[in-house]
């Protein structure tokens, strides 16, 4: 009598549909937590890397030197990725054309591509978190409704409806909703937090791209002036 209302007992005794719903919610909760942990680590690491790169970039180091510090085949991330793709494009175009307009356009395009890749990388799986956050309450509600339907069907077969006969059914039906909320609430909270974080980082990358663009523009301007002289 005592353990008939404990949560594992209720889960084990639930009907198949409700059990399936609870399994889905369990998996959803598990995966959303995996995403939460993984994204949190990624964001923290990206933030640190960005701070480190900016310090290095603005320390007055020569851009060629900075570019050559990292081997070409190594994949870079964040603002460094933007810088490398832009600087590589700049060097390539410098050898082929003399028009500063064409060079700047090419650099800008390449940097936009890099930024877009960074955005894609940062926002990876955040959509899954949003899906879990919005869908799992409905899934849990479905399980509850199904369980209560079952309880009323069995109630119609019973001779007399006491609270004791209805209570376990209702309890196991309500567990589905509880699990849905259990999955959804952390997902909502961390989705908001992580998407704000990634938005802030992308904003920083964009600012850096603009600053780098203006540096390149200044260099080209000096060179064309010198070439004209």
């Amino acid at each position, binding site marked *: 009598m005592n353990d008939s*209302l404990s*949560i*594992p007992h209720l889960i084990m005794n639930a009907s198949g549909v409700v059990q399936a719903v609870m399994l889905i919610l369990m998996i959803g*909760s*598990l995966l959303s937590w995996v995403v939460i942990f993984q994204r949190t680590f990624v964001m923290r690491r990206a933030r640190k890397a960005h701070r480190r790169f900016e310090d290095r970039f603005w320390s007055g180091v020569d851009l060629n030197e900075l570019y050559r510090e*990292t081997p070409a085949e190594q994949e870079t991330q964040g603002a460094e990725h933007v810088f490398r793709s832009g600087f590589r494009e700049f060097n390539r175009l410098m050898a082929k054309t003399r028009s500063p307009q064409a060079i700047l356009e090419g650099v800008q395009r390449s940097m936009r591509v890099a930024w877009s890749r960074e955005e894609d990388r940062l926002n990876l799986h955040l959509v899954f978190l949003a899906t879990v956050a919005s869908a799992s309450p409905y899934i849990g509600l479905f399980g509850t409704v199904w369980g209560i339907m079952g309880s009323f069907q069995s109630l119609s077969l019973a001779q007399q409806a006491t609270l004791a006969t209805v209570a376990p059914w209702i309890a196991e039906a309500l567990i589905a909703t509880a699990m849905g909320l259990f999955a959804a609430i952390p997902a909502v909270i961390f989705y908001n937090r992580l998407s704000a974080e990634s938005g802030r980082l992308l904003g920083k990358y964009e600012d850096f791209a603009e600053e780098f663009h203006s540096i390149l523009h200044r260099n080209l301007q000096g060179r064309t002036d010198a070439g004209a002289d």
Partner: protein
Amino acid sequence: MARQDRRVGYGLPLLLAIGLHLAILVASVLRFPDEEVAPPSTSIVQATLVSTETTTDQAQRAEEARARADARQAEEEEEAARAEQEAARQAEEVEEEAARQAEAEAEAQRQAEAEAREAARREAEEEAARRAAKAEEQAREREAQAERRRQAEAEAERIRQAEAEAERKREAEAEAERQRQAEAEAERQRQADAEAERKREAERKREAEAEAERKRQAEAEAERKRQAEAEAERKRQAEEAARRAAEAASQGLDRAIEGESDNVANARQATEAANSFITLVRRAVEQAWVIPPNVPAGAAAQVTVRLGPSGELFAASIGQSSGDGAFDRSAIQAVEAAAPFAELRQLPTAVQRDYRQFNLRFRPGDIR
């Protein structure tokens, strides 16, 4: 540099997530059974007392009796006051008449007094008869005796008076005759100067007669007064006796009522204490009861429990079997495990005896 491990893998987050879920699951599994145990089971053992009766009815009856007695007492007091007034007035009249009139009137007065006394006595008797038959009987007997004695005395007095009166008259007549004869003789003997002598003699005799008459009247007066006083005294005594009888009767009733209401209060207190005792016993037995497995749903057993004077268990026997031997045994074992019931000693001594035997009804309740 830090760039070497830029990639964040999924292994660590997966481990963390699984660990988190397992922790939550374990927490819920460990916590919930404890919480489920905590709420106490509903009353599955019912106790019924074998020998106590409610006292509420008696209490009601006592209250009614008390109200009735109060009303009657007020009425009776009023009547007594009225009778006293009446008696006082009559006594006054009687004295006036006694001062003015002769024995015939005294007779009438006595009759009137007797009537008044009779009326008062009847009233008193009626009231006394209504409340306490015994006291009233005694009072009436005493009354009757006093009355008989009083009547006898009055009769003797009357006879004595009449005799004295007749004697006095006879003496006076004889003397007058003798004097007349002497006069006639003296007249016959001394005719000349006897006239003056005779006149003087007659004068003297008349004076003597008047004197005697006056004396007699004074005596009669005194006698009448004494009689009236004695009469009043007797009347007062009779009234006193009647009042005493009535008071005794009403006091007896009051005492009876008080005793009854005391009994009622005691009984109520005892019932309260006994209820708490029964509750304690029931709880103890419930806690000690180990319900055997596979009990049929509607099983119920009644165990008759007899206790010793200090609450120790004398006997626990099945009064009404559930049909399931194991179930019956478990009930008896529960009672034996819960004994002794030392709370019995805290009951009022008067009711301890009543609570030394009671029935306990065992029902497993609706266990699924």
